[in-house]
């Protein structure tokens, strides 16, 4: 009576042990040969793009709590500029902007989630820096910035603080795991001030602590501060200091060593800017397919095989623009004049209007 149970136990454990041991040996033999043959990624190497296509949906990591960028409303729908980038990529691949699964990631979980393949791409207020881009650092790939931002500091009007130097010895609330954290450390060293940093894993907890008066100041990207301020009970009691602590180019991110997939994200993002430059909008995109300009025609896939070269349907930009509009439309709808945030376009204008949004030619 007892024998069988102890045998069962032994068998189940040895199976577990066997599978645990067997897995590395098989995968090792499988993996060493292609890696030895081609150290870098080539067009023929497996790409995440294939995984996404066979899965039938895109998994996009977003912040999920910043109004205007990515936000879940009370009906459970995702909206925002970052979300629209996900939708554009999904539309470019599948022709359907709804084939996206969103994952809310806080600032600390985003890179492990991307690196492990938990999400296909991040579209989540992520600052482009060398250490995050390089293989020695986080080993990521940054698509062009979809929002040029700078780090700012928010204080209450009542505090009377107007200058960074006045923050010496004062408490500042920060979200941990961000460039914000590092910039603040660097700027304080430069200015010779020692603010008392209170760091939170969840930006919401940080903002709550700031509103409760735990900190004299809250620092984050200026757009994020402005966005969160709209949700405060008395937004007018809080001001953003003029000082900008850093450059914060925020853009979509994919994993290193997968250039096929990275190119898709990169060129869909550029495509949104190019569409604005061409004057292609959500409303007129379908008639523009037969535009007289060869450039526009090629851009929309009526000519040439730009899309095919990327491994996408040739009319990928038609689908993307049809789904979310061009960059200008996305901007105005989510964070610009059409939204409660009303952030001036400034640096985020097209290059032809004095901004930084500049797409390399589609040809």
């Amino acid at each position, binding site marked *: 009576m007892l024998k069988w149970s102890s045998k069962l136990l032994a068998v189940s454990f040895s199976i577990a042990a066997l599978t645990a041991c067997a897995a590395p040996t098989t995968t090792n033999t499988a993996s060493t040969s292609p890696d030895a043959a081609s150290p870098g990624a080539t067009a023929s190497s497996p790409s995440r793009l294939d995984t996404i296509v066979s899965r039938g949906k895109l998994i996009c990591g977003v912040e999920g709590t910043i109004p205007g960028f990515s936000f879940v409303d009370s009906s459970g729908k995702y909206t925002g500029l970052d979300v629209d980038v996900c939708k554009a990529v999904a539309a470019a691949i599948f022709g359907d902007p709804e084939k996206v699964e969103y994952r809310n990631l806080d600032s600390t979980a985003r890179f*492990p989630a991307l690196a492990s393949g938990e999400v296909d791409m991040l579209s989540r207020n992520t600052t482009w820096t060398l250490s995050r881009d390089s293989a020695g650092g986080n080993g990521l790939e940054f698509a062009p910035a979809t929002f040029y931002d700078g780090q700012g500091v928010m204080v209450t009007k009542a505090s009377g603080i107007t200058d960074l130097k006045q923050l010496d010895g004062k408490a500042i609330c920060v979200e941990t795991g961000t460039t914000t954290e590092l910039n603040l450390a660097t700027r304080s060293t430069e200015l010779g001030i020692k603010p008392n940093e209170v760091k939170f894993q969840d930006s919401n907890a940080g903002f709550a602590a700031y509103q409760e008066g735990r900190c004299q100041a809250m620092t984050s990207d200026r757009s994020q501060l402005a966005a969160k301020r709209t949700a405060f009970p008395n937004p007018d009691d809080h001001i953003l200091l003029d000082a900008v602590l850093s450059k914060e180019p925020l853009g979509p991110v994919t994993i290193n060593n997968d250039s096929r997939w990275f190119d898709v994200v990169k060129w869909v993002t550029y495509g949104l800017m190019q569409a604005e430059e061409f004057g292609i909008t959500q409303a007129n995109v379908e008639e523009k397919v037969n535009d007289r300009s060869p450039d526009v025609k090629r851009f929309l896939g009526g000519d040439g095989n730009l899309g095919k070269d990327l491994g996408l349907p040739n009319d990928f930009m038609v689908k993307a623009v049809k789904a979310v509009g061009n960059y200008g439309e996305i901007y105005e709808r989510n964070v610009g004049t059409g939204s409660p945030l009303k952030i001036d376009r400034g640096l985020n204008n097209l290059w032809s209007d004095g901004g930084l949004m500049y797409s390399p030619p589609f040809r």
Partner: protein
Amino acid sequence: MITTHPPSSRPPLAQLGAVAWVRKNLFSNWFNTLLTLLLGLILGRTLIGFLTWSTTTAKWQVIPANLPLFFVGRYPAAEYWRMWIIVGLIAALAGLTWGILARNAVQLFSQSILIWFGVAAAIAFLSPTAIPLRILMVCVLVGVLASAWVGRMAGRRTPALGQWLSFAWALSFIVVWWLIVGGLGLPEVGTTNWGGLMLTLFLSVASILICFPLGVLLALGRQSNLPVVRWISIAFIEVVRGVPLIVILFIGAVMVPLFLPEGVRPNLVLRAIIGLTLFSAAYLAENVRGGLQSVPRGQMEASSALGLNPAPHDNSGGSPSSPQGFYSSDRRAVY
């Protein structure tokens, strides 16, 4: 001769009435009096603080606005009726179980139970939600009582019904699963759209169910006299118990695909169930072990003398020590 009645004396104050109760239970000596006053003061201040906060600062309107998000996450609104069927099903089954198990009780609905139900109904009815929702909630509560009564009647007629209860619960788990997931004629709802309280309950029920056999297996493995089995069990239990849950969740939530072949990405809900199951199994295993060890060695020796268990220390189930051990560890598992 004048007889004077002695003045009829009242019963001593310290034996009857509310005053006596208060004196006995709150002010029996100087120390208790001090304690009562101090506690009363703290309690009063806290209550006043809470009341002022809840009437002035608190913003209750966020609750009704986010109620669906809280209960079912991003589950499609068109499919909410499934959730109500699940709630109804569980309420009916709970009521039936209660009725059948308590079929021989003198009184099914004692005063205190009715009071609790009344309070729950009042809360449900006054809750800041849409009117149909409130009526539904009250209906569910009434449904529990009604099915309890039905269960009692049915249970009295056919006492054998009690044996079918666990079967009914197992069946209901499958039905609930089908209602949540969809398929077989219902539109499918992907796990990414699950959320809120529904997901929490689903995860807890699933992982509690699975962790029991696994925990017992681990506990027996730890006592096994096969060294490999014993060492693996010990290593697993100690590592899982020695690391904070937040670390395990971090690995489970964002790092699992790193340890798997390319492109394999297990379902998140499945992963959460596995993670929680492994975690609770390790804890349960220790409780089971404690239970097994609480059985005096003499019992094992006696059983081996009866020819049940050739190895005194290898009590891998089936021996008399197990039923005793499990009784003792069951009680710990509740904590």
